[in-house]
């Protein structure tokens, strides 16, 4: 179901804004800048080509990282789902990788890679691949045995079996994985850019921190949050379109 702002949402966010604005009257701007100053900095991003390029760079890194970890995650999920031996080797490996903090990956990437983009791509893939693998493996394993046998009774080729049964079965899990990992990727990309990049939202946040510009830092943060929300809404719309066959209970609507 597509997200629609309700009165409660507006009250909650409006309340936060109000508290912030009141705080701005009692604290210096480098701690609690007034809302108009944050808004001004936020909208300034959209009219400045360089700022937009920075935002675009971060968006590109998020998409590239997610796409890379998605491809690798799907391959590993299938290797685990189709082979018990594959599962026995890959599961502990992915579980181990999942336990490594993002900051450790940043350090490893800086030592291993020279350029900024390979470093960030490596960090993004390393931090998301386990989640993608496990979520898609779960979707693959939830495939109905009854539908599998029914499809097999028509003697499909491997390619047809994938097309008519496996792909439609795992699509909902794939979309959920993208939604979940998008938020995670947005957090990680900022950490990666903070350390090694010369552009992007993380880099901009570092600049604001060095000049004690809280309004600027919040404007860039807001930019990242808006980006995540917009992309998540796009995924929800794709989901609604692709999963339109699903019944909804009247009470749940």
């Amino acid at each position: 179901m597509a997200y629609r702002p309700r009165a409660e949402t507006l009250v909650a966010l409006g309340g936060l804004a109000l508290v912030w604005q009141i705080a701005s009257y009692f604290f210096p701007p480098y701690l609690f800048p007034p809302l108009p100053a944050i808004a001004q900095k936020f909208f300034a991003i959209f009219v400045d080509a360089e700022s937009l390029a920075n935002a675009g760079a971060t968006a590109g890194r998020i998409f590239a990282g997610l796409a890379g970890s998605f491809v690798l995650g799907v391959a590993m999920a299938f290797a685990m789902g189709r082979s018990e031996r594959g599962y026995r080797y890959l599961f502990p490996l992915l579980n181990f990788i999942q336990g490594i903090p993002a900051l450790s990956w940043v350090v490893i990437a800086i030592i291993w890679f020279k350029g900024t983009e390979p470093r960030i791509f490596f960090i993004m893939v390393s931090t998301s691949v386990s989640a993608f693998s496990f979520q898609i493996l779960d979707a693959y394993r939830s495939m109905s045995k009854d539908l599998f046998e029914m499809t097999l009774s028509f003697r499909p080729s491997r390619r047809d079996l994938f097309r008519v049964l496996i792909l439609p079965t795992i699509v909902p899990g794939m979309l959920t994985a993208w939604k979940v990992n998008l938020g995670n990727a947005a957090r990680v990309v900022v950490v990666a850019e903070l350390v090694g990049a010369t552009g992007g939202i993380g880099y901009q946040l570092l600049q604001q921190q060095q000049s004690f510009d809280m309004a600027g830092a919040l404007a860039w943060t807001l930019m990242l949050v808006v980006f995540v929300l917009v992309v998540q809404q796009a995924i929800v719309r794709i989901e609604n379109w692709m999963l339109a066959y699903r019944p909804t209970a009247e009470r749940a609507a």
Partner: protein
Amino acid sequence: MSAAAPAGAAIEFRDVAKRFVRPERRDESFLAIESLSFEVARGERVAVLGRTGCGKSTMFNLLAGLIEPTSGTVRALGHDPFREFDWFRGRIAVVFQGDRLMPWRSALANVELGIELLGKAEEERRAIALGWLERLGLKGHENDYPHALSGGMRQRVSIARAFAVGPEILLCDEPFSALDELTGQRLREEYLQLVKETGATSVFVTHSISEALQLGERILVFHRPARIALEARIAGGDREDIRRRVLEAMTASGAPAEEEQDAA
């Protein structure tokens, strides 16, 4: 190359046994089929009866080529259903106990599934599927998803899906058992009509003696583990006598038949 079945036989089980190893205890196994031998002639309608767990579904899966026998020979149309799996594409179709419709496909797309896997062009398969839906009284429901259809309508779609590929052998695993009596009766009549019209060889697994008497030309009663406990030809026979003999055979195999349970 597999040995051909005797002339006229569409299905042949010759001294078949099937043993399953328990996945959780690999040193333990159980025998689902002991020594099963029977033949079904081309175009014949055979009903298979037996108590729960007597190996009917195992026989069904062997015939569908989904599992391999531990020993013995299974042949359908002169070929091995397991080893020559692809050869049977479009030649064998199955109607399962549940409708097993793909929830993401409309009624029309579900009926098209088997024809689509045969590689027919979109226009041709659409025409065939529409024809079968109309024949089964589902005109106007082509674009409905399974969740919007009643149990009887969903089972009709699954019957249409099986017939749409034009199979030479039709396997049915208690397809009407989950339906109410009236819907089940109507579907049984429609099914029988379609099998007669198409001339397909039909193997119908059921728990109900009445259903077996209605749909079969011959009844096979399975003992547990599966082997033939009784074979009765219906055509020309005294139906009450056959019913009594089937009931006795089923009771002797360890459990009362559905009718007896209902009467108790």
